[in-house]
């Protein structure tokens, strides 16, 4: 057994927040548990910031430093937890991901309109690819996003954690309340198969 993993998806309290599933942390945070809220921030913020850096066009990357849109978005989501919990497993990650993507779009447009020496025309701003688009191509990214959007929240969470945020299987097992690393791995592979199927049909 991996000592870092919970024996089951339901974590007994009191317990080290680092060993709790995300859904349990959300419940505790909603009840006012600051440790749970800090754990959620610590768990997601660094990786989401790096994730966002791949989604921001180069000229807008300074937004991550100047206004830290990811931290701001994450805090706002945590303050409005009532809306999220009811979405069930995976709802939190999907909600945060979409909220950050929306915020990125807003901020990029704002940055494009902002006068200054680094001003980028709005038309160019819209057409300027993010590093991720540069890496895989805008068409491929669009297909991927469409495929992701069509999955269940649970599958979306698994793929976000593994494919986009690069959590290892042990961490994913903890965060999604699965009994073992292998169970998390199998779940990720199943979600991946569904995504490939959805994208394959979309071509």
């Amino acid at each position, binding site marked *: 057994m991996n000592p870092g993993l919970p024996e089951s998806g339901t974590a007994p309290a009191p317990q080290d927040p680092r060993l709790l599933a995300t859904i349990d942390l959300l419940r505790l945070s909603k009840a006012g548990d600051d440790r749970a809220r800090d754990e959620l921030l610590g768990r997601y913020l660094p990786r989401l910031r790096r994730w966002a850096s791949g989604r921001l066009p180069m000229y807008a990357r300074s937004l991550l430093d100047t206004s830290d849109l990811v931290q701001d978005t994450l805090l706002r989501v945590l303050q409005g937890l009532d809306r999220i919990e009811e979405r069930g497993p995976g709802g939190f990650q999907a909600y945060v991901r979409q909220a950050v993507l929306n915020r990125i779009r807003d901020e990029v447009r704002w940055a494009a309109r902002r006068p200054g020496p680094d001003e980028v025309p709005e038309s160019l701003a819209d057409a300027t690819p993010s590093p991720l688009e540069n890496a895989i191509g805008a068409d491929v990214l669009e297909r991927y996003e469409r495929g992701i959007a069509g999955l269940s929240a649970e599958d979306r969470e698994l793929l976000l954690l593994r494919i986009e945020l690069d959590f290892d299987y042990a961490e994913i097992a903890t965060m999604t309340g699965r009994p073992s690393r292998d169970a998390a791995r199998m779940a990720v592979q199943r979600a*991946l198969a569904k995504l490939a199927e959805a994208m394959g049909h*979309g071509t």
Partner: protein
Amino acid sequence: MEPDRDAVERLLASVADGIPVDWEAAERQARPEERARLEALRAIAGVADFSRGLQRGAGDASFPERWGSLLLLERLGAGARADVFRAWDPALRREVALKLLRPGAGGDGEALLAEGRAAAAIRHPHVVTVYGIERHDGRVGLTMELLRGATLEQEVLAGGPLDFATAARLGSELASALGAVHGAGLLHRDLKPANVVRDSEGRFVLADFGLGLRAEEARTAPAASGTPMYMAPEVLAGGPATHRSDVHSLGLVLWFALAGGHPYDVATLPALVAAAARGPSPALRERRPDTPPGLAAAVARATAVDPKERFAGAPEAGIALAEAARRIASRRRRLARTPVLVLATVVIAVTAWAGLRAWRAARHGGSPAPATPPAAATAAGAYGVEASFVRHDAGGRELRLATGDRVRPGDRLSLEVRATRPVWVYVLDEDEHGERFLLFPQPSFDAHNPLAADSSFLLPGTIGGKPNAWTVTSAGGREHFLVVASPGPVAELEADLGRLPAPRAGAPIAYATVGRASTERLRGVGGLAELPEAPAVASPDTGVFAHFRALAGRETGVHGIWVRQVVLENPR
């Protein structure tokens, strides 16, 4: 049919686990119904690779977010002294490769800067373009063209040894690249399959300057700091690197590409030093017996243990390898024959050597060149010739081809020809190396010269009673054909034909190489004068195409040798 579930599961697991996948091989093996899903998985793997680079790079001291003005996106590789990143240059709005030396990686910073500047002066199609070298935050970095493609090491390990033509081209291109590096006053010192990239256009590119070192400093530099498996024996023994030691590495890279492995099966460095002192064993032709002799000899000479027995430098190696490539290409005829079930009946264009002479005279503003009468050009009076290439498609239809039309590998071609008097017809093909071959006549063909008057012939015609056609077997830019008709045999071409071995039943057709004497003779009558794509003419009436038009459909006006060049586009 059920898809191979194990293969699909393995791919899913690899993508999920972040294990690199050979997508080209997977696509080759995939069933058609699996392709869309495979393509989707590849796209997902792209997202995963990119994200992993972002996530793992951050917070890692060896993967800074920025270096100078560059934004680092992904680590492409890591060596003993440096990391290579994919980076974004916001000023120029392009992705670049950044080779960033690790702090404390050794080496004199100023020497490296000087070396980088020398490398940046190299402009060569087979050497990665170095944009510049700078120092930021105490770290020296080299910005280079970002190459997209597999390394030679990846390609050979995944797909096996290269075919001979590709290997010879690899050798020729790398020798040329190495010559450029040496010409800039540098030594490479770390030439290896992992440092050679085959880009999306198929070009082999020397992708890294490795431990490049200025040649004049090599005598005092510490030896043996490259990749041991590709080092020359004298360098392994502690001697200095030289042009000839780089040539030895080139030879070992070729050995690897041709044999699919390294010549020394050793596990330790002392064992490698001892083995290298004896030279590659087994010899390349023991590992791959059908290696063409010229190519095997070039590799053997490049990898000679004694530096004095090697090529003196990269240019000499390049000449030998280019010659090997040329010979291989000559053997692999771009036109082969395969059975054809249909016959064509259509025809076109006509010109006359007399007309060409008149055109050349008009173009050069002088009187007709005093061309030596060709050996066969007996004054036989006027006659008419019609000739046209036709393509047979899969549906049994024939399509008439004219200069500029496109052909593709697999296309089957015939020449329809008809003359108003008995003629000797010769069909020549020029390959990409400028070598010319006689496609017709052939001893094994049923049709023989002279072709009877007033009858349509489809060449190559039948072989043993079975209809045949020439088949385009590879893509190569352009197919140059020359059709020659003459009232009598053209002595030079007949001599070329006479050098062919006697045909044997079941043996492949050997096409005669057309010698310089023959082509010079034809040049004398204007036959090999390059026909311009859009002829530069003094007036529409004096252009060569005007002559074609004037002669087409007319049964008179053709004297002596008749020549028609047809250029078909055959893009890669």
